[in-house]
């Protein structure tokens, strides 16, 4: 946000006349832009000072800009003041912020938490599970050493003793139970306790007091707001809405980096199991990171809090998706190198052969444990800067693949997802807070106490529909495969003439499937292909080979081919080949018009010649197959396919 940055610099200038001598433009830049170095202590303290001033003057724009800048909010004293503002706990309040008194408690008093005695509320159904998780929580503090070194003299350097940790666990339990008893429609998930523990740590105020204590009220309000507004999708009955969120990682990468996307697809089982012809975008590797705002996976508390600053400033859980994408991009070279396929990065070609990638290693490399293991301060700064660019350059609802991704999963299937309302990255923070304030049960909104549970109920219902939808898509793929297998058996057994109607009928059933047409064509052609090119005895045993060219050269297929209609083979092969060659951009832009015409004439010649000409044709397609312009596959009428099948009219 260059515009904001410069206007903020001006603001800073007015705020700090004494800064004029210090080249404020450059100082500003180091906060916002591409100086990928950790801040020096001097700048850090200056930044801290500026942040405090901004707090004092309630200049939220500056605060938010700073949150996303190098080193985030610097320390937890500031965090515990700014996070409430980010989460909209405090709006248009007149009481001035005074850092030297216990501000947070002052303005929180207006929420009158004491009114809610959670002991009187019925227990939440997940409390046993919560206890189990809390017993083994705060393991992050056993990594205290790592953040001691990182954070030097800042306020959260306090060494936590065992009794401190026991105390924190008790507070964590009561914090989570308070929120969940107040909102019984929310479901607890393993990982929620990680989120709550980070909030608790930030509210651990050991400032000037001899007795450090946790500001529990503040922690409650933060967790309450975060849960209802941002984590809600993860807290409905079904876990699959969380899985939908994860799908957005490959979705973004498909538009950002086709090579990395192509690689990620290799980690998808359904993609491998369907011979690379169906991809469902699931990306379970990021589950723990996304569900816990990275707190389950990043052990360095300093790094973690900087990420939280950034993410909270975006006021959307979608920010975490972008951050994960940014991590993958940042370590792309390393990942390719470890897999021994660096040459793919160097190549200019549009199609890549990932067939030798070690799937286990790939899974490990794109999982949090490996991805976050060597994270340095400088890396993190780069990654977050990149994230900012990605959010700006690749808005999730305007991606070119949106009709089969974001729009489908959210706008169509899960309209009440947080991504479209309370955690919508495109809607202004304050607007969201005002619009959806009634979701929170508090004194001023007693008249709508049921709003949240009603909302969750509709989300549950939407998820049921999605489950049905997913099942029907799978069923259709399944049926299509079966029916094609059947019709191909007939093709094998029957006379050529009688096989035409069969093929024709499977092709027309293709056309009836509207939304999944791509998948169907893909699976259809795959089956045709497999049917035609498989060698009866040994090769079919060998599970499925992925090497297209190897199969093409296999001599034995010639005898098969000549048995069957030549044109059927052509179209099956053509579709399969094109789709496989184009898999990094599944099914986009295939010049079928041109190719079918070309092929039709070719096939006429070849029908006479048979045998040897086939080799030529493969070469021809091999060179042609990579062409990426032309029609959108989804818009292809079956007329073209038929033309291909039956030859030119």
């Amino acid at each position, binding site marked *: 946000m260059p515009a904001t940055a410069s206007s903020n610099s001006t603001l800073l200038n007015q705020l700090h006349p004494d800064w004029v001598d210090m080249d404020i433009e450059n100082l500003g830049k180091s906060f916002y832009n591409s100086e990928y170095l950790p801040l020096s202590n001097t700048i850090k303290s200056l930044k801290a000072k500026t942040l405090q001033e901004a707090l004092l003057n309630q200049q939220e724009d500056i605060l938010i800009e700073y949150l996303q800048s190098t080193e985030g909010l610097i320390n937890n004293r500031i965090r515990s003041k700014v996070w409430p503002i980010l989460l909209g706990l405090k709006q248009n309040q007149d009481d001035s912020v005074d850092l030297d008194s216990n501000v947070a408690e002052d303005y929180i008093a207006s929420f009158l938490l004491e009114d809610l005695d959670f002991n009187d509320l019925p227990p939440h159904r997940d409390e046993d599970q919560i206890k189990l998780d809390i017993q083994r929580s705060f393991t992050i503090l056993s990594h205290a050493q790592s953040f001691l070194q990182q954070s030097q003299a800042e306020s959260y350097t306090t060494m936590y003793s065992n009794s401190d940790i026991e105390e924190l666990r008790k507070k964590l339990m009561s914090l989570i139970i308070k929120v969940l008893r107040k909102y019984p429609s929310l479901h607890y*998930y*393993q990982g929620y306790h990680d989120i709550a523990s980070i909030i608790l740590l930030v509210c651990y105020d050991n400032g000037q007091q001899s007795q450090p204590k946790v500001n529990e009220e503040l922690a409650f309000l933060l967790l309450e707001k975060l849960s209802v507004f941002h984590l809600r999708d993860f807290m409905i009955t079904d876990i699959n809405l969380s899985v939908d969120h994860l799908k957005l990682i490959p979705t973004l990468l498909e538009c950002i980096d086709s090579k990395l996307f192509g690689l990620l697809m290799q980690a998808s*089982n359904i993609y491998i199991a369907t011979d690379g012809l169906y991809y469902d975008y*699931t990306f379970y590797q990021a589950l723990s990171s996304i569900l816990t705002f990275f707190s389950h996976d990043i052990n360095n508390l300093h790094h973690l809090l900087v990420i939280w600053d950034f993410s909270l400033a975006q006021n959307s859980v979608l920010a975490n998706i972008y951050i994960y994408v940014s991590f993958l991009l940042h370590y792309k070279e390393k990942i390719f190198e470890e897999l021994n396929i660096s040459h793919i990065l160097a190549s200019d070609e549009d199609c890549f052969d990932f067939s030798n990638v070690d799937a286990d290693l790939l899974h490990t490399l794109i999982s949090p444990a490996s991805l976050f293991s060597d994270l340095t301060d400088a890396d993190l700064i780069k990654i977050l800067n990149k994230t900012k660019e990605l959010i700006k350059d690749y808005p999730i609802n305007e991606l070119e693949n949106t009709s089969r991704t974001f729009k489908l999963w959210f706008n169509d299937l899960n309209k009440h997802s947080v991504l479209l309302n309370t955690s919508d990255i495109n809607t202004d923070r304050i607007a969201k807070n005002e619009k959806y304030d009634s979701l929170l049960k508090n004194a001023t909104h007693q008249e709508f106490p049921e709003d949240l549970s009603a909302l969750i109920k509709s989300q549950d219902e939407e998820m049921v529909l999605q489950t049905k939808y997913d099942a029907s898509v799978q069923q259709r793929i399944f049926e299509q495969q079966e029916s094609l297998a059947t019709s191909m*058996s007939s093709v094998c057994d029957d006379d050529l003439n009688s096989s035409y109607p069969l093929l024709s009928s499977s092709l027309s059933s293709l056309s009836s499937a509207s939304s999944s047409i791509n998948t169907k064509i893909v699976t259809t052609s795959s089956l045709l292909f497999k049917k035609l090119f498989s060698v009866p005895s040994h090769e079919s045993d060998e*599970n*499925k080979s992925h090497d297209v060219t190897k199969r093409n050269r296999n001599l034995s297929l010639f005898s098969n081919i000549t048995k069957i209609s030549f044109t059927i083979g052509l179209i099956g092969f053509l579709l399969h080949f094109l789709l496989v060659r184009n898999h990094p951009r599944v099914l986009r832009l295939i010049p079928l018009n041109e190719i079918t015409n070309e092929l039709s004439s070719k096939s006429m010649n070849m029908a006479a010649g048979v045998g040897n000409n086939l080799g030529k044709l493969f070469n021809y397609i091999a060179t042609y197959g990579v062409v990426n312009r032309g029609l959108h596959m989804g818009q292809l009428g079956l007329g073209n396919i038929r033309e291909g099948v039956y030859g030119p009219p």
Partner: protein
Amino acid sequence: MTEQNRFAQFKLVLLGESAVGKSSIVHRFVKNTFDDLRESTIGAAFLTQSINLPDLKTTIKFEIWDTAGQERYKSLAPMYYRNANAALCVYDITSLSSFNKAQDWIKELKKQAPEGIVIALVGNKTDLTENRQVDNDEVLQYINDLNNDSNSKIIHSECSAKLGEGVLDIFDQIARSLPIDDINKKVNGNKRISGVDLGRNIKQNQNLQQNNSCC
């Protein structure tokens, strides 16, 4: 097969109630370490470890999927066991409910998992024997009944991940129950399929293969 060491690779999934010690067993097996407070697993964790069976001149590599215990994550489990070769159903000997839960998992596996999956029922935390709630005789009775009902043999064992007792033995037993010879061929073909699977693929592929062979 020559006299050289054979190599086979198998997928193994851990299932069981929350906090019975699934991750602790895996970490004892893979890293020979133990943490009193191992943090909750979210989703699933993936680790690998190989063991040697010198008498069989075989090295077996386990690809281990350690799943989350919370009921909520249960719907993800099929993706992990769908193409697993072995499953460890873990319970905590100090918790009867966890034993019941392990039985549920066995039931589900018998219904949904691939045929021939090696199942081991494992009671963890034998170091807490003074709090034992799950009687070993009862477990043996259950296993007997089950094994009489069907052809499959379920492995049963107890262990203490904390003390490191009995853990290796379980994996050794499993390794010896796996169809090393049969699967050796398949390993290459399956190599690229990692532990996550969706729906009916196995069935689909079987159909596909069968039908393919007709031409």
